């Protein structure tokens, strides 16, 4: 029996090795294959003679702006209601909780289909950046609500009571005391949500139209994003360009992740939670 369990231990360590190798291989492959292919034309060209990711860049920034402008206020306000006004109990809270959880579990392609039905067809906008942005906003809403809820719950009750004791109203307490103390967690949540917007492509394929060669003129024009460009390049035979675009996207995503964890650490330090 002992031998069997020692063997299991070795198998576990092998599995750990496989996990690390697989995941490192993905990143290493992209970096090695793609870095050499980065060129000025690819990054900033005008897409006349050779492929360029400038339109994707613009599209991505617009999508991030639209999605976070919609999802952040709604998400944070919704978490405030759940935590500060209802004590996280009651029937309505339960329903809202179930709705957010269900939203979080819907596959992104179904969001894409919904965005297509409502913005492209029902509203008659056609493929548009703004349609894609709103769909993405609904998609990241559950993440923002949940993490904001967590950071609001971690604010000590004494702070609120102290504020009430000094005569502040509830709304004033929320905006002057609770939100500033929870701001670190909320900012981290927003950055991670932006990371999801940046890496999403299945939603966009159905809502913004994958027009890779034109910088979008306005929010109602079709466009593309970095992640969508990778798919376009890869499936149309531009594999080198796809790898190079992946490098750019990867750098973005890793930067966002490091930023989020850096802010988290900074806040913990300043509130003295971590020594």
């Amino acid at each position, binding site marked *: 029996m*002992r031998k069997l369990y020692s063997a*299991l*231990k070795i198998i*576990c*360590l092998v*599995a*750990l090795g496989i*996990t690390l190798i*697989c*995941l490192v*291989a*993905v*990143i290493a*492959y*992209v970096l090695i*294959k793609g870095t050499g292919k980065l060129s000025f034309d690819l990054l900033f060209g005008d897409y006349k003679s050779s492929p360029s990711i400038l339109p994707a860049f613009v599209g991505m920034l617009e999508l991030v702006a639209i999605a976070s402008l919609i999802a952040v*206020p709604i*998400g944070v*306000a*919704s978490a405030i*209601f759940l935590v*500060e*006004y209802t004590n996280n109990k009651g029937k309505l809270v339960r329903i*809202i909780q179930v*709705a*957010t*959880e*269900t939203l979080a*579990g*819907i*596959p992104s*392609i*179904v969001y*894409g*289909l*919904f965005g*297509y*039905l409502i913005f492209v067809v029902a509203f008659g906008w056609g493929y548009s950046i703004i349609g894609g942005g709103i769909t993405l906003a*609904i998609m990241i*809403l*559950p993440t923002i609500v949940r993490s904001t809820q967590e950071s609001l719950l971690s604010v000590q009750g004494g702070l609120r009571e102290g504020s009430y004791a000094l005569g502040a*109203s509830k*709304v004033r307490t929320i905006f002057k005391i609770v939100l500033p103390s929870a701001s670190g967690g909320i900012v981290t949540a927003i950055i991670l949500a932006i990371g999801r917007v*940046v*890496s*999403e*492509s*299945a939603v966009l*394929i159905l809502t913004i139209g994958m027009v890779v060669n034109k910088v979008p003129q306005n929010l109602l024009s079709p466009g593309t994003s970095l*992640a*969508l460009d*990778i*798919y376009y390049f*890869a499936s149309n035979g531009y*594999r080198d360009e796809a*790898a190079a675009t992946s490098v750019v*996207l*990867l750098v973005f995503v890793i930067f966002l*992740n490091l930023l989020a*964890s850096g802010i988290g650490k900074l806040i913990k330090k300043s509130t003295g939670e971590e020594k």
Partner: protein
Amino acid sequence: MKSSTFINLKEKGMRFVFLFCAIFSILALATITVFLFISGTPFIAKTGFFEFVFVMKWAPLADEIAYGIFPMIVTTLYVTALSVIIGVGIGLLTAIALYKFCPKKLVNPIRQMINLLAGIPSVIFGLFGMTVIVPFVRDYISPNGVGYGIFSASLVLGIMILPTIVSVSLDSLNSVPSSYYEGALALGATKEQATFKILVPSAKSGILAGVVLAIGRAIGETMAVIMVIGGSPEMPNSLFQSVRTLTANIAMGAMELRGDALSALIATGVVLFVFTLLLNISFSLLKREKNDKIKKKESKK
């Protein structure tokens, strides 16, 4: 007096604003459900539920039009099952290794790295699959020289869900009280026996929740799959054959189809939506069971 009524008004107003935002999630979910079902179910009703779900042929552009998504359902199930077996198998063992058998100094850096990897966009996994895994499978593993198909898709998805499974399993292992482990050691179990016979079974419900989460991701993943699965709407007869999943069907058809064929795609979305709803329900049931257990333990104390 005046200022206090003003404050009261402001308080009530803000409460209303917060409430409205909180209800927004419900509204969004309701709109999504209603839109999908209104545009999807009439088509299912027209074709007939059994026709749509169990007919083996999908040919919206052929002379003899057929809208049967059975091949896609089967492929989805195959891909999901295989990738979850790969991902959970390796991921769970990795979590156990990180929990007990890895030098303590390495655990945190490895964990952070795995968390970072969880953020890699799926389209990059797709690119990796398309340019590395598919050629490799074609040249060395496939018996018939086809690299695209269920096998490659499951490999790519398995790798993709690894980080999720590792971190969820590690969390639930960490939440097992250390007295369980110490008790087992005191009774004469070896370190390994205590880990596999006591710790892992105690973390079961958390691990199971992680598995359900992984199933959800595998069913819903689109981009990584369409880049490696080939895309022919055929019944899978082998692991090495160009096929498509439900998600791939939606993504591949949506750009070019109109009319009835488009309604068929939306109906595909409805089927996928119902799948994930069922998964969600089982996930929340699992979570409730886990919470009940914790409550029972606490009340015993």
